């Protein structure tokens, strides 16, 4: 320690003299407005999908509820304690509520929420923490994916359909299970080619459009004409492939994920984007903040264990569903089939599996 400290002190002394520049840091906010902290996991903003959806909810709250916000994110290859430290720093700085985006935050949220019982926490995609100040916000991704499967089966001419998952983890296999079930229920003879961009512990599959593009190209070469990418930022590769394949005379439909990806796609990509399976992380984030501002909490019993509360977002409460931007579902006359399936899922006539069939 002595050496590194000495080195640092000396170096800081030198650089501070040489490089003293005007301070560019925001002064601490002294008002009593609600300060919302949002913690992204690796990847963070800019994926035009999962994380950006969470951010959209935060921005909406900023505008409509006049809350002050701060975002932090986990660095790639960072220690597990980094997530913990960042949540703790937010809590210490008076941010309340604090929303953790992603299931890898579970251990850290549990620890820090115990330390700060008066601070309200929320975690997306995890329902394992039984603490009164933690809201678990989870989604029925399989239900929305089932509808995407119905749409894919109806839109496909070849009967060959592709599914590209980001990373082979149980969460993404939920998308796969629902999608495959939707395809099979609509068209028995159709086949679904299931591929994942990366295997855990390698989480780059959520941010590797180049690799996703290669996978998508492999699928279209084998005759697939509808490809659903549930892969965060990697989905871009799927959309690019569709543009190129269609230009080469092999028309391909794509299905986006989490956000309504039609809205952020390029003009060329829009022509091939059938729909997106929207997972309303934005709604969950906004609900959470809005409840807090009103002095309430999001604390439905989730039925997964004593003391685990929060909210499950599904078709019934419009937490998941298919986006209609582009209007292709109507043009191809498949909206009716999708709506019929949605009604059956809502009433419980169709039970959608959450794990892929072995």
């Amino acid at each position, binding site marked *: 320690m002595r050496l590194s400290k000495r080195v640092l002190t000396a170096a800081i002394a030198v650089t501070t003299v040489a490089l003293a520049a005007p301070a560019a840091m925001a002064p601490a906010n002294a008002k009593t407005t609600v300060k919302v902290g949002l913690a992204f996991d690796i990847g963070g903003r800019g994926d035009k999908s999962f994380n950006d959806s969470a951010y959209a909810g935060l921005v909406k709250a900023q505008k409509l509820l006049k809350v002050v916000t701060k975002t932090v994110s986990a660095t790639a290859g960072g220690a597990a304690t980094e997530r913990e430290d960042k949540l703790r720093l937010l809590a210490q700085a008076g941010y309340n509520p604090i929303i953790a985006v992603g299931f890898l935050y579970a251990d850290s949220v549990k620890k820090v929420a115990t330390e700060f019982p008066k601070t309200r926490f929320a975690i997306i995609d995890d329902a394992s923490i039984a603490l009164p100040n933690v809201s678990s916000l989870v989604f029925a991704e399989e239900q929305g994916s089932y509808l995407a499967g119905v749409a894919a089966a109806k839109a496909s001419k070849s009967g060959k359909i592709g599914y590209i998952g980001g990373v082979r983890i149980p969460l993404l296999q939920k998308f796969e299970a629902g999608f495959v079930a939707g395809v099979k229920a609509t068209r028995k003879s159709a086949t679904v080619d299931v591929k994942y961009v990366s295997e*855990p*512990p390698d989480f780059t599959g959520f941010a590797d459009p180049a690799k996703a593009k290669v996978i998508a190209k492999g699928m279209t070469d084998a005759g697939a004409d509808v490809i659903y990418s549930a892969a965060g930022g990697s989905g871009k590769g799927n959309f690019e492939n569709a543009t190129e394949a269609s230009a080469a005379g092999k028309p391909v439909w794509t299905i986006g994920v989490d956000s309504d990806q039609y809205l952020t796609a390029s003009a060329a990509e829009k022509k091939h984007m059938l729909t997106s399976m929207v997972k309303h992380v934005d709604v969950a984030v906004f609900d959470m903040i809005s409840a807090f501002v009103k002095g309430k909490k999001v604390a439905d019993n989730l039925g997964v264990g004593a003391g685990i509360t929060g909210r499950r977002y599904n078709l019934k409460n419009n937490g998941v569903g298919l986006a209609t931007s582009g209007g292709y579902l109507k043009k191809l006359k498949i909206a009716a089939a999708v709506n019929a399936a949605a009604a059956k899922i809502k009433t419980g006539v169709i039970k959608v599996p959450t794990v892929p069939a072995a």
Partner: protein
Amino acid sequence: MSRRFSPQSIALTLAAPLVAAVFGLGISSIALMITHNSPLETFRAMWDYGTQVGSLIEMVNLGAVYYIAALAVALTFKAGLFNIGVESQIRLGALFAAWIGAMFTLPPVLHVFVILVVASLVGAMWAFLPALLKVKRGVSEVISTIMLNSIGSALSAYLLADHFQQLVAGSNNVTTKPLPQSAWVPDLMSWLNRVGIKDVPGGGPYGLVFLAVALGFLYSFIVNRTRFGFDLRASGASPTAASVSGVNPKRMIILAMMLSGAFAGLAMMPVMLGESHAYTLGFRGGVGFTGIAIALLGRNNAVGIAFSSLLFGFLEVSARILELNGIATEIYIIMQGAILLSAVAAYEVVRRYRETLNARALARAGVTA
């Protein structure tokens, strides 16, 4: 040998890391200014946060992990080899240690010992593969260890998902069965309490920080005080000369790689036995690569590596405060990279300067003689 401790020599030894740190901070300052941030404020924020008790503890905890990984890399550097596979040796060692360690309960100390042995053996076995390929088929260990990193990562994914996993209701994480309490190593907070340091939220230093220290001594002892260490260094310095003097080069390659793997397997044990108590999807990646950088910065010397590990730990921890000030945390990666690059350059400059001094001294001695 008396020259080793002369004031001039000590000054020269300190000059390189000092110059490197100044350069590193200079380059990071430029990066900060490009992104319209004040270097002065940034460094002050990092220093203020980084020197808090909790942050210093975290620095030691991160440093302990890096230290073990870097020692593993340094062992092969000493032998003229390059084990880039430390990353997957760490991972597989930890995965198997978690899986096997959770199968039974044993008396506390014995249980920990068994887990450490498992981690170490698995790491050594995974490092044996590239050594064997090199000895039998002449495959460069650089290439084979890189490839084995990918294979090891895929293998760990498969084993965790299909064989070792235990699902927790409501959780999307995948984890091995948690280790029983007899395998937990308590942190050292109570020791710090005794010297008047109060509890901090993140917990104390990992108990297995001592493992890192012990491995440091072991490394130093093996490399500098044993016949094996001498042969190791000899083959590193000149394989031909070593083999002429009776060192079996194939044996050295296999032993050096396996010993390196044995060290590597232990790298994440402080975290696993001290905090996570299981191998999960959130298991940290990249430690093996950071270890390479730290071994380079520490010049394969047990003490040098210790300082380098703590420096890397310090930068990493202290950068965590930055996002609250609107600066990307990743600035610490620029700092680490800049310090490393400057260090390599500075060491070379100092080495040449030393040679010139030596040559002059020799010339003077020749004149006076």
